[in-house]
């Protein structure tokens, strides 16, 4: 069989079914990481943990890209303030759940109530922010939203609100040091008393922990993977919701706003209201996803909500292609696994496989040695903590420019959800009608 037909068959098999495509992608990424880990002889616990981290971030960025796609891909609202709305969600949840006696004090509400409250608050603030903002041109909207997210971050960081009392109610954001969040709720599955410092496992926990212990896999890793499974379920739910919205009358109006706002208005649709609803819904989802993200770390700080966080989501969205839910997931997974986590993994691979001497002090010294034919000093210089993270962000910059130049619609951009209910480009052209 020729390679051409294999490729064609693979494309036919994958191209027709989005679920198959996504599973194949997940297997490919996981396989890639696992292969390198096994070849280099990494410990099983470490390998499984790397895979967990990649899967966790892929799911989070896929969900964030889906939420952003609702605003930008469907309604054409350029929201560069995603990080700000994520911060509002996480901090509302944190303040609502923090015990009244803690420092900073909170409201001591149970987690599900707090999450619901956080979604409502984020959606409400998103809607209010949209009221004046949607009148603006796309580039002004971008500047206004990024300024909004910075205002949110600076307010959360301000010492004045770190531990405050408004109208007799004491609460606080924790200022620059950050805010403790409740422990991961998934622990309930495995422990009888998850809040304790050294909790005793329940029946399920004991069974699983003792099963994986001979393999050298730690308890925290089992919990981490269980959380990833829950996240994947959330991702599936969100994907289903987005596909439903896309096909609903509401979604068709959004896509027609993206294509031509004036025509939509002429058809009697209140485009303003549609945009405000979409903006609020997208923001509420971002708040929820950010809560899912931070719950696994148990802690939030204003540093996590810098504008770069928004750019990460946009890169994920643009890789996958705007306007297509499947594209958002592909983009989120590719971004998290290759661009976000890839460089630090490569760094480990390099450090394990090559015996690196001490890194030269400066780039000049490294390049001088390169001139004499020795690549090792430059590699050693490049895999230092500071330089590898700089290289990663340089790579992101190049990817963003490349995508904008060559594929402004992303990898799956050709599958942009169309505005009309029938695909007009597929319509048979009957030239004889005009003769």
């Amino acid at each position, binding site marked *: 069989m020729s390679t051409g037909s294999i490729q064609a068959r693979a494309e036919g098999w994958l191209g027709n079914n989005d679920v198959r495509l996504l599973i194949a992608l997940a297997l490919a990424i996981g396989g890639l990481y696992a292969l390198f880990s096994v070849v280099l002889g990494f410990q099983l616990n470490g390998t499984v943990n790397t895979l967990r981290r990649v899967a966790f971030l892929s799911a989070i960025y896929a969900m964030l890209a889906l939420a952003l796609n609702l605003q930008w891909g469907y309604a054409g609202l*350029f929201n560069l303030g995603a990080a700000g709305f994520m911060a509002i969600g996480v901090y509302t949840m944190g303040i609502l759940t923090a015990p009244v006696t803690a420092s900073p004090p909170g409201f001591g509400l149970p987690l599900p109530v707090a999450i619901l409250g956080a979604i409502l608050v984020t959606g409400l603030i998103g809607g209010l922010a949209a009221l*004046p903002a949607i*009148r*603006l*041109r*796309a*580039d*002004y909207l*971008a*500047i*206004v939203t*990024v*300024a*909004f997210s*910075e*205002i949110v971050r*600076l*307010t959360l*960081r*301000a*010492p*004045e609100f770190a531990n405050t009392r408004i109208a007799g109610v004491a609460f606080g954001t924790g200022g620059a040091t950050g805010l403790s969040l409740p422990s991961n709720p998934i622990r309930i599955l495995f422990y009888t008393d998850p809040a304790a410092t050294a909790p005793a496992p329940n029946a399920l926990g004991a069974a699983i922990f003792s099963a994986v212990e001979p393999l050298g896999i730690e308890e925290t890793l089992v919990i981490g993977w269980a959380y990833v499974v829950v996240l994947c379920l959330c991702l599936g739910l969100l994907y289903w919701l987005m596909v439903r919205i896309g096909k609903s009358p509401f979604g068709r109006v959004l896509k027609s706003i993206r294509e031509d706002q004036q025509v939509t208005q002429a058809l009697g649709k209140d485009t303003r209201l549609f945009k405000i609803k979409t903006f609020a819904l997208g923001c509420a989802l971002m708040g929820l996803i950010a809560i899912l993200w931070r719950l696994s770390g148990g802690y939030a700080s204003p540093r996590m909500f810098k504008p*770069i966080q928004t*750019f990460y989501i*946009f890169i994920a969205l*643009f890789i996958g292609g705007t306007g297509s839910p499947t594209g958002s997931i592909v983009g989120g997974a590719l971004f998290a696994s290759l661009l976000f986590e890839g460089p630090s993994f490569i760094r480990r691979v390099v450090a394990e496989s090559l015996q690196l001497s001490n890194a030269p*002090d*400066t*780039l*000049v*010294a490294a390049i001088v040695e390169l001139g004499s034919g020795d690549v090792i000093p430059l590699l050693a210089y490049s895999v*230092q903590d*500071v*330089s590898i*993270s*700089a*290289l990663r*962000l*340089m790579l*992101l*910059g*190049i*990817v*963003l*420019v490349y995508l*904008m*130049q060559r594929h*402004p619609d992303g990898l799956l951009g050709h599958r942009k959800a169309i505005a009309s209910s029938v695909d007009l480009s597929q319509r048979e052209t009957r030239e004889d009608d005009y003769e």
Partner: protein
Amino acid sequence: MAARDYYSRGQNIVYNRPVLVVFAVIGVFLVFDIFRQLGTGTITATDLVSYLWNGLVLGMSLGLAGVGLSMTYSILNFANFAHGDLITSGAFAGWATAFLIAGLGDFSVEALVLIGGPIAVGSNELGINVVNTPLALLAGLLVAAVLTAALSLLLDRIVFKPMRSADGVTLMIASVGVALFLRNFLTFSFLTDSRGLTGGNVPQFTLGGVTFGGHQITLVLVAALLMLATHVLLQYTKIGTAMRAMAANKDLAKVTGIPTERVVKLTWGIGGGLTGCAGFLIALQQGTLTVTMGWDLLLLVFAAVILGGVGSIYGAMVGGVILGIASRLALVWIPASFLLAAAFVLMIVMLLVRPSGLFSGRTTA
């Protein structure tokens, strides 16, 4: 009759622009509140003058940094998010030169040029300031201008030229990529977080309790000179006329025979040069250099440009000064940790009330 005219015109404004009226009332109230606080002694005249002076210094930095941004915004029609990192690049290039000239012979070239990193020379060992080493600073300013102009042209050639026909949003996103690349390229090369620049006894004057720093005065004077030069260039030269024509109407400029592509290159060059100077001077005034300095300033520069009206060079200058003074005066009412947030709020309000800015409709004039 005249009184009635004014009355009906006033009535019109109140009915048609209620938001504008509300903000005007708030503004007037704040001005009165300053006088009230002066009267009751909550703030002193010295405080007020020092707020105004520091505001002017910040405003001139923002204004000078904003001219280049406003130029590219009006002629290429996109918000350049890489502008902040052009400011930083200019500062790094200029200060590497200044260190090299001030310390050549005493230290190795590598240690001087690599402003950061483990082997870099400390600022106190060189004692660079405007009195001790004026020539090194002048050379630094020139190199900052030339190299940033060259960098802008290079970026235009590689990134923006192939996308001339793309829309503003696509260009803006590409410029975010450029910003990420530039900033982290500097981090990768210099391995630095923050670095002291100036040393020795920096001269300063104290007048009635208010301190006027020597480097602050240098910044204000040089920035004013550069803005004046930009004004002359735009108003009285052929290049300036061509740039203004292109900002007003690109197609019309093209049919009139203006070589638009050459004007675009000139815009990048001139705007980049001014931006490099701004970066060098801001670093001089702050006395420190960080990789994120330009990025941290970017939103403020955007605010200045928007306040004055996008595309208007004078708008950028005036907007910068107004924003600088307003954000320092805000210390009368709000704590320092909210200064930046207050400036952003001012920008958002401006975009909502009067998106065309104070100098609306006057592109590059």
